[in-house]
């Protein structure tokens, strides 16, 4: 029998509901409007016989005495073929299909199936009758775009099963049963092409978690060389507004060497998502030659969409990422911005009248952020393959001040920190990752000793630059001045990239290794000049040539020519030992 409660209080998107039969924490419930519209909500606190629910929609028109249907199910997403290339809201409603039905505006209480129900998929079985399987092991596969999409034993089934029957190769819908499995007690369960999973729980159908060691190439030199990210690693990008967080995320989404990219636009501008939506389908993925959209999935809960669904959106994103990880793929989850998600937590916490922590964020903020980032990782699956979820989250600190609670809580759990600075973005230095403040615990593609040495030159050059502001150029020794110029050279030629140039916007691993080696050589060369002006104009010219060198095709004749020009110029000022 249906479990029905009655509303006794409404405060913005928080409902207080009196219930009679048992309710489950975090279960989904629907609040019913007079018009029959059902508003999706989630139980977030229970006190005596009153449950408190956050509603994922606008609550205008609800009143005391309205019914609430409890479903007994935790907030879940649908997993199965047909997820890729889609655009979902935070609750996994496909937005383009919603637009077809409702027009320009979102309509509350309208929920659609995430996976297309009538589409047929060409299924190929991978097991035979009598085989023993357990949760997460493949029963078969279907082709989904460029991937072999594994159909797995539902993750929520415990124990070992014997295959009773398996469908033969053929076309099936996501709701069709493709296998019957018998558990140890002889009970027979039906597996379909699709399954569902509660978003707030991590999927754990693997044999072990591994240490992230393999570099993930983002094709941004400053990241890959100085502050690398590894497959299965987690990193954060905090920065004030206008520092280029979103541009950096978009470039990463476009160029990162991973199988699948999931973009979670959480509480940010709708306009930015639109760029991705309209541009990705037209761009080709250099790895596959197909449209970039084929490896992309977008979760989009922009700032004007309901706040509670914003909180759900990051979990929806990470759950879908874990699902594809289970197929042995390498997935990159980009969450923009986790601060908006934390603010959603704060809003609910305020309405629940919980005792506030710092800046009114709830006291459990840190543990919630930590458990989210902990869902990133590289794992060995039951079939021996590895799959990974890499998480990159942006943080939008209030006032651009990294001391605030969300940034600090995030820094505790990530392996790399790419701090963006207003100063660098004002100087139009892209990416505006601050080379002196940022750090990474991962190992990249460049020899660590050399990158540390280059980084030191940057550091010392910066110190000289600071000093020069006080004592002037006259008070600086020639050696120090050259060190300063070398630091600037490294900054403009290597750290910065031209996001508007189609070659320089993405620098592949082999090119990076080559260019770094050459730049390193230039930094290590001892040069001499009679006057400071000569030194400055030499480096200005060298920078100009090196920037052109960055903009031409790797290994082309032009590339070789420009490289020769650089080293010829360098030889003229080199001190011969």
């Amino acid at each position, binding site marked *: 029998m249906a479990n029905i409660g009655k*509303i*006794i*209080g*409404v*405060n913005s998107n928080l409902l*207080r509901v009196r219930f009679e039969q048992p309710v489950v924490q975090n279960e989904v419930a629907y609040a019913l409007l007079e018009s029959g519209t059902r508003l999706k909500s989630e139980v977030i606190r229970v006190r005596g016989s009153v449950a408190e629910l956050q509603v994922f929609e*606008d*609550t*205008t*028109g*609800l*009143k*005391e*005495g309205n019914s609430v249907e409890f479903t007994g199910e935790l907030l879940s997403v649908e997993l199965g073929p047909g997820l890729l290339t889609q*655009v979902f809201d935070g609750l996994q409603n496909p*937005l*383009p299909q*919603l*637009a077809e039905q*409702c*027009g*320009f*505006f*979102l*309509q*509350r209480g309208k929920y659609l199936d995430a996976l297309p129900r009538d589409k047929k998929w060409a299924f190929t079985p991978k097991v035979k009758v009598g085989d023993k399987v357990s949760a997460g092991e493949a029963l078969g596969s279907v082709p989904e775009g460029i991937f072999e999409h594994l159909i797995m034993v539902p993750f929520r089934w415990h124990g070992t099963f014997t295959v009773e029957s398996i469908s033969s190769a053929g076309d099936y819908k996501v709701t069709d049963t493709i296998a019957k499995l018998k558990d140890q007690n002889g009970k027979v369960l039906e597996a379909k092409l699709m399954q569902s999973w509660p978003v707030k729980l991590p999927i754990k159908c693997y044999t072990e978690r591994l240490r992230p060691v393999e570099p993930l190439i983002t094709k941004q030199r400053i990241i890959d060389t100085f502050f690398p990210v590894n497959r299965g690693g987690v990193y954060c990008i905090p920065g*004030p*507004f*206008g520092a280029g967080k979103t541009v950096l995320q978009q470039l990463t989404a476009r160029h990162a060497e991973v199988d699948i990219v999931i973009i979670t636009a959480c*509480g940010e*501008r*709708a*306009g930015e*998502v*639109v*760029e991705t*939506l*309209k*541009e990705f389908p037209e761009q080709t993925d250099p790895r596959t030659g197909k449209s970039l959209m084929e490896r992309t999935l977008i979760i989009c809960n*922009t*700032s*004007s*969409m309901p*706040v509670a669904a914003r909180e759900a959106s990051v979990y929806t994103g990470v759950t879908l990422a874990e699902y594809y990880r289970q197929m042995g793929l390498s997935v990159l989850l980009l969450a923009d911005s986790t601060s*908006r998600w934390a*603010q*959603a937590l*704060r*809003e609910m*916490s*305020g309405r629940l*009248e919980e005792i*506030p922590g710092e*800046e*009114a*964020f709830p006291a459990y903020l840190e543990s919630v952020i930590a458990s989210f980032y902990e869902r990133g990782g590289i794992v060995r699956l039951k079939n021996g393959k590895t799959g990974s979820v890499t998480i990159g989250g942006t943080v939008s600190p*209030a*006032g*651009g001040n990294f001391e605030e609670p969300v940034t600090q809580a995030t820094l505790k759990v990530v392996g790399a920190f790419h701090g963006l600075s207003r100063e660098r973005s*004002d100087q139009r230095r892209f990416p505006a990752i601050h080379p002196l403040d940022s750090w990474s615990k991962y190992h990249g593609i460049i020899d660590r000793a050399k990158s540390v040495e280059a980084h030191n030159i940057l550091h010392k050059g910066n110190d000289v630059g600071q000093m020069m502001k006080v004592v002037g150029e006259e008070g600086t020794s020639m050696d120090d001045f050259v060190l300063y110029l070398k630091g600037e050279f490294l900054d403009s030629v290597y750290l910065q990239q031209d996001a508007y140039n189609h070659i320089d916007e993405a620098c592949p691993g082999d090119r990076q290794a080559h260019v770094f080696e050459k730049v390193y050589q230039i930094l290590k060369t001892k040069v001499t000049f009679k006057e400071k002006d000569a030194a400055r104009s030499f480096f200005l010219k060298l920078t100009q040539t090196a920037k052109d060198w960055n903009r031409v095709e790797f290994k082309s004749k032009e590339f070789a020519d420009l490289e020769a020009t650089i080293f010829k110029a360098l030889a003229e000022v080199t001190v011969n030992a």
Partner: protein
Amino acid sequence: MHKVYHKIERIAGNVITVAADGVTYHELAQVQSPQGTSLAQVIRIDSGMIDLQVFAGSRGVSTDSQVRFLGRSMQVPFSESLLGRVFSGAGEPRDNGPAISENMIDIGGPSVNPSKRIIPKSMVRTGIPMIDVFNTLVVSQKLPIFSIAGEPYNELLARIALQAEVDIIILGGMGLKYDDYLFFRDFLEERGALSRTVSFMHTASDPIVECLLVPDAALAVAEQFATQGKKVLVLLTDMTNFADAMKEIAITMEQVPSNRGYPGDLYSQLASRYEKAVDFEGSGSITILAVTTMPGDDVTHPVPDNTGYITEGQFYLRKGRIEPFGSLSRLKQQVNGDTREDHRTMMNTMIQLYASYKETLEKQSMGFRMGNWDAKLLKYGVRFEKEMMDLSVNIPLEKALDLGWKILAEYFKPEETGIPSKLIAKFWPE
């Protein structure tokens, strides 16, 4: 038909509490007190107790005042006859015209489906070179004007309202000084722009709750015009007053404050208004320009800070001019490539030279020797400030670019500007 209640249980700030049943969330009620009649909106329902926010304030409300629930939520009228009229936040006429009650529409409606948005592609011409040339305003953009008290931001808005090439202007005033309200009214009337303007005005002496309604009312009307194919420009001043009104209500409601007393949902509240800026595919559009005054000229204050994260750039208004350095229109790249071939180059060159001028000024003030180049820059800077930056300049984009070439040619040699020779050949005045 509608139930009437006569017993008010609690009065605190602008919020009154009555025991009632069958009341829906966000429903409107009419509160009748010896002071007059005011609308009120349900903002909390708790076990039979209904909290209502009284638009005219609770002053003079007695414990036996009459509360009548209306069975609908907040609405404003919408029709062509709105043009030229001035309303309060609650939708009452502020001019001496008749009340309009036809075709009522809900305010604070749902947000636009992101998949129905399109990439912005056309500019809004304002005739102000600092905007048109250097930080182009784009259709469907949302841009704040960051300023401090005392700056002529209302004059700037009024000029944009007058000059912008749009079909409809919706003006929303929040916490305005009465003088400013009169200024807007007279300015637009004298110059004949009132006939395409709808105003929602809240002055500092009006009830604070009505301030909260202004952006929603303005944007709801804008949305209707836009879906009818009109190009709408919404001007809001001043969003900091709006945020302060929210703060006031939140504190009265005993909400836990988050940052400097502002409620924790400040970002969401501001975003849900700004995100109404949109270009409807195959129909009209809404562009939003909003003044945000920065208390103490501090951009890290919660209101400008949260605004900066929401909007697509910002204009800084300092010393009566739009600052070229901090100001940024994030969408300008989408449109300034297709205006005229020299647009981007002129934009960059003139700003770079102006930046050098600023450096020279600094050097001059420190007593360094001025060279030949410095002398050129000093002359250039003065001209630039006078003929480009001054807010009274009103010339179309093309004229402004021509003027730019003229100023450059007067002080510099072509090679000193770093402009590509192809453009020099075509545009450099003899």
